[in-house]
């Protein structure tokens, strides 16, 4: 699996995801500067977490217009897998590769903690190493993770099985109490129509190493390795 991690000014989880990718695949990803015009030949492009361009306009809005994103959009169209984590998810919605928007958390506060996620389907390149209905523990750390889409979009996402993960409790129950940020239908991550683009607010790279307290996040990277190698 050849992976590339895009580095925007203000990205701050680029190293973390590179470490997780290398731990899963044995190969260090290419780190690609936002000002580059082309992503080197890759099977997977990762848009990492952070505060691209300070998120001063709107989370992900400026990054969506950086030079490299034209090529990311093109390559996604060609079928290259794209994973956007946290700020990366926000960038993907701003480019239109994924539907919906990430609004300010309902609490209006930044929130950093472990959450439980229910795996909604396991027949994708990102989730093959999980089982549908699995409850996994992965941290969130964001101020703008409140997923919103209009009713038609939401219906389409649900009908076509494009919700990747939902915030839930230990038993997999999805409820208002298990919703950390106000997201509609407790949505934590969504796929594009092809199933080859995933955006999610939680950070799988932060619990992909037993020394950090868990390895539930590693499944995202090992799934990709299995599918793309």
């Amino acid at each position, binding site marked *: 699996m050849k992976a590339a991690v895009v580095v925007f*000014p203000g990205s*701050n989880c680029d190293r973390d995801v590179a470490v997780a990718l290398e731990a899963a695949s044995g190969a260090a990803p290419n780190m690609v500067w936002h000002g580059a015009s082309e992503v080197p030949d890759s099977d997977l492009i990762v848009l990492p977490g952070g505060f691209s361009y300070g*998120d001063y306009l709107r989370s992900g809005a400026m990054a969506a217009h950086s030079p490299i994103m034209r090529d990311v959009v093109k390559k996604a169209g060609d079928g290259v897998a794209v994973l956007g984590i946290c700020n990366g998810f926000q960038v993907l919605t701003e480019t239109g590769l994924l539907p919906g928007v990430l609004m300010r958390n309902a609490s209006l506060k930044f929130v950093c903690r472990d959450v439980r996620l229910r795996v909604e389907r396991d027949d994708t390149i990102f989730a093959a190493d999980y089982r549908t209905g699995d409850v996994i523990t992965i941290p969130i*750390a964001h101020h703008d993770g409140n997923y919103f889409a209009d009713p038609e979009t939401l219906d389409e996402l649900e009908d076509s099985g494009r919700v990747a993960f939902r915030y839930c409790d230990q038993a997999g129950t999805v409820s208002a109490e298990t919703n950390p940020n106000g997201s509609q239908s407790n949505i934590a991550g969504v796929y594009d129509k092809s199933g080859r683009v995933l955006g999610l607010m939680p950070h799988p790279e932060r619990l992909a190493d037993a*020394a950090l*307290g868990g390895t539930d996040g590693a499944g995202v990277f090992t799934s990709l390795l299995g599918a793309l190698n």
Partner: protein
Amino acid sequence: MATAQSSQSALRVTPELASEHGLTGDEYDHLLDILGREPTLTELGIFSVMWSEHCSYKSSKFWLRQLPTAGERVIQGPGENAGVVDLGDGDAAVFKMESHNHPSFIEPYQGAATGVGGIMRDVFTMGARPVANLNALRFGAPGHEKTRHLVAGVVAGIGGYGNCVGVPTVGGEVNFDAGYNNNILVNAMCVGLARTDKIFYAAASGTDLPVVYVGSKTGRDGIHGATMASAEFSGDADEKRPTVQVGDPFTEKLLIEACLELMAGDAIIGIQDMGAAGLTCSSVEMADKGGVGIELDIDRVPAREEAMTAYEMMLSESQERMVMVLKPGAEKQAQAIFEKWGLDFAVVGRTTDTGRLVVRHKGQVEVDVPVDVLANSAPEYKRAWKLADPPAVIPPEEVPGPESLTDALETLLGSSHLCSRRWVWEQYDHMVMADTVQRPGGDAAVVRVHGTSKGLAASADVTPRYCTADPREGGKQAVAEVWRNLTATGALPLAITDCLNFGNPERPEVMGQFVGCIEGMAEACRAFDFPVVSGNVSLYNETDGKAIPPTPAIGGIGLIPDLDAMATIALKAEGETLLLLGSERGHLGQSLYMREILDQARGAPPPVDLEAERRTGDFVRGLIGEGSVTAVHDVSDGGLLVALAEMAIASGIGVAMAAYGGPLPLHAVLFGEDQGRYLISLAEGEDEIISRAMAAGIPARTIGHTGGDELRLSDEVFWPIQQLKDLHEAWLPDYMKSI
């Protein structure tokens, strides 16, 4: 001597103007003597900040010399941007703590945010990548009208800055006390990692070298911030809002990356961040340490606003700026890196052999003063001090027991003082960088040294109510508490940074608190081989003549050689044995029991027996290292019962306590705050460990066994863990919700 002429010569400097700049009559006369003439307005501004308490340490310097600063692992002690300590294998920790008290009271979000930004710059200026932020926060009484607003703003500001930069905020402490009603304390600490052969210093050695300005543009913000931070408030705090700087964490992130990228090469001779007193302080320090002069052409400084005067340029405290002295010819390489990161880069001057700071603006010489005079002629005061006799020790028998033990523990755990700080640290990204191996909520935070199996533990502590009652014991206890918290994770404590927050030093009783705390700290530092490598003094924390409680916040770091042998406070399994190590004296004077249950603050604080403390700590660290214990927690605020409850809450596993058969009153055993104690949990080997402890001269007693879902003192007195957890978690969110 070339005479500087002010372009604002219409504005003649008078004694009155000097006084408005915070200089006393004597200090202004001293300045006239040194210069042999009247200063220009810009020179007056420069001297006033260089001689401010904040920059010159004029009241504290004499006493700070008492603190031990050397040790085998110390690479750099106080006097640089931050302290540097050897971690072995070519790794070094670079760390410092600093106050941002005055600005945070005036404008909590920006005040706290720029405090975080400033301390991170101190660390990466030295070539280190910041890897952990901590903070020590003191707010007024929960019922005070400003407290909620200040808590909300400070926490959001710390998070807003640190989260964006991408450095985890992993630990700290939060207190509420009426003594801080009008003077909150925001002390920010940053720990960074560097290679020992890549440490950068401020000295601008060599002449005719380019002086380079990088980072954000200079605006009119924060002018006289240092002077503001060197005076007490008098009900006019809100009017000082324009002196608070505004932070831009995005630029800070870029600055970190650009500086570290440039530092990977060998272009830099000296580097200094622009903190208090901005361009003035940074250029003077660099020139002084390098033994050279500096000429600055202010017209070349990137400006955010039009028509700024030399005075404004030199005194601006705009954030996210650095000054560097480069090797000749390295400008192009450096410029390319800073331009790649979208940062301003300008050659603004050069080093000279004149030994003078010369500042030119629009063709006029605005400043022409010997660097040595600017850096080293600040007055130094040995102020009068008066240390009250410590109060008498109150015997445990003289402190009444609670009406209900059940209620007493619940009151303590649900109090503003002991409740969970989750509401605070969940607003901080404490996991970014993916090396946080011990998250907030334990005795100390631990981050992994990236790419290794070594851990760096960090903690920030002080108990102001002890310092108020007896500054010497309080100073000792603050150092001991940090040392103990680091030890409880299995770390070998290496060194400390301090942030000494006090009232007006011109009052002998305040100066006495300062002197007492320093003496106590020095004694503890020596006893633990735990030197002070960096720090900051914040005086004049008082309003209308009422000073804060003496608050010498201590930030310490320790090394865990192998993370496989790291301890946490959470119980791990049922059927284990809990031991208490250390002497039980039932000391209740100045305890939280006394404060929260009896509503009193009486007597002497618990004494710290430094030898016993070290003996016990070394023993516990040994047990952790050999893998004999499954959980460790130090016993501090609230005493034994609170510590047990915290271990149970952290795990959900209950504890059945053994009956106490000793001579002390039960409430003194349960709530006494005797120092130098640890709770350890053992899967096996109880008898062996007790006899080893006894042989080492350390009292050890079996406290109980793990199991069930209750904390059980007796058949009549017990608490469901879930109930304790709920009330422990409730106070802070409930309080903040009621905004």
